[in-house]
């Protein structure tokens, strides 16, 4: 793996973080990542993040769940082994609603959770790099990628953008 290096700067308040990001963006400095102890509101618009495609994945999986759930029950009771239960029709739609609903929810939930884990590259044994263990405590961190040995330059930029402390990390 090619050698990479990052520069990090941290803030102690989410408002300062947002100000810092805006200051860096004004200078056209590309921000590699922002790491926070909790979801900071408005960060998605500031960082111009694309809207997540998870809702769509959930919808498709849910629709599949509904189709499979209903289709399977209908197939079992009309094709595979039609049985008469209390004089009800073989294709007794109201009876199929509960299982259809449960499968819809189950498949949508699986799609959402696995979609989230896969698209975020998270999972059991994922070896993401933690640059600062205090990020999960009270630090709001901005990460900038070093290219062509401009580490000192970036550190100075971070400092002027109000970071409380800056650091260089080799990966």
């Amino acid at each position: 793996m090619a050698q990479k290096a990052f520069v990090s700067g941290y803030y102690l308040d989410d408002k300062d973080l947002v100000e810092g990001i805006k200051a860096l963006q004004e200078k056209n400095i590309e921000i590699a990542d922002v790491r926070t102890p909790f979801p900071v509101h408005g960060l998605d618009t500031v960082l111009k993040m694309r809207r997540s495609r998870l809702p769509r994945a959930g919808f498709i999986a849910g629709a599949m769940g509904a189709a499979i759930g209903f289709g399977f029950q209908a197939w079992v009771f009309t094709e595979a082994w039609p049985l008469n239960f209390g004089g009800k029709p073989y294709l007794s739609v109201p009876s199929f609603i509960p299982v259809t609903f449960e499968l819809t929810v189950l498949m949508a939930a699986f799609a959402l959770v696995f979609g989230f884990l896969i698209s975020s590259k998270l999972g059991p044994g994922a070896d993401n790099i933690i640059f600062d263990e205090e990020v999960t405590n009270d630090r709001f961190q901005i990460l900038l990628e070093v290219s062509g040995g401009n580490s000192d330059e970036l550190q100075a930029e971070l400092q002027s953008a109000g970071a409380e402390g800056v650091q260089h990390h080799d990966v």
Partner: protein
Amino acid sequence: MYKSFEFTKKIKSFLIAMLVIGAVLAAAGIAMNLDHTHRIWANVLLNGFFFTAIAMSAAFFVIVHVLGESGWHTAVQRIPEAMSLYVPVGGVFMLLVLVGMHDIYHWSHTEHLDEVLQGKAPYLNPLFFSIRTVAYIVIWSLLVLWFRKTSLKTDSTDDIKLFNKQRTIAGIFIVIFAVTSSTSAWDWIMSIDAHWFSTLFGWYMFVSTFVAAVAVIIVLLFILRRMGYMEHVNDEHLHDLGKYLFGFSIFWAYLWVSQYLLIWYSNIPEETVYYVKRIQDFETVFYANVIINFLAPFLILMARGTKRKLNWLIAAAVIVFIGHWIDMYLAIMPGATGHAEFGILEIGMTVFVLAVFLFVFFSRFAKAPVVPENHPYFKESFDYDNIR
């Protein structure tokens, strides 16, 4: 800052025109149906009940937000508040129903009742029924007027005591409404099919009219926006109203399925008779009811974007409003007239009552500032956002 609403001549004359058209059509309908008066009275009940229940549900909408310590609703609160003031007027239609009682409720013919209805006579008899009807109307009217009065007082002072008083009224309101919403639905609607009974019926009716009330709030908001008012209402408020419409449409469907499935599954003739009648003689309406009130709002409002765009939201709201009128139609007509009839009478009567409702709403809405600016949570309503 918040442009107060003016009940202009233009609106007034539009509503009067609507009123006249409705009255003419209704009169024509009545003239054509003089030989089956039950259809006429059933229409009075249908629209009388529907709009009164919407007004009560609108009051409930406000009350439940007061009790839930909500802040966002204050931006739109005055709309349902003004809607709720229709209760005393709608009550007049319900009093009219008392006049036509014998044409709608066959248990009211006390002289020839079968054994089952004789058993119900201590509850279902014309005198007690009339007392209950009057009591609902009077108590409900007092409640909505009391709340409105307290709410208006906050416009001139920011005394926190008034805010606490609103909560007290809300508490009293919810206790009374918890009981009367069910009993009124049994009395006015369920007893049309006098032999039939369902414990869920009251809650089902309440949710049906609540969804309709949310739809009406959205529609009125849209009309007001078109006229250049309520410009402070932003996408977040629309999103929240949209979620209400979406969520409670699903909840309505849940109750519909619960009631239908249990009766269908157990297959007891005393109970299935209700659905048999509806499926045989009102087949189109029966299935349309489910599709319009569940599938349409579900599909339209599922995405986040459509809840935040007034045009999509309004489409869903109008569909749902019509849908729940159909739901009421389906609850009343099979028992009252026995045939799926729809004509000038139905249209005229609905247009007429709707015009009265709108007239009351706009005239009341003009009487007060469009927002309760001194509400302690008012500012919160403009500084929150929905998760993406």
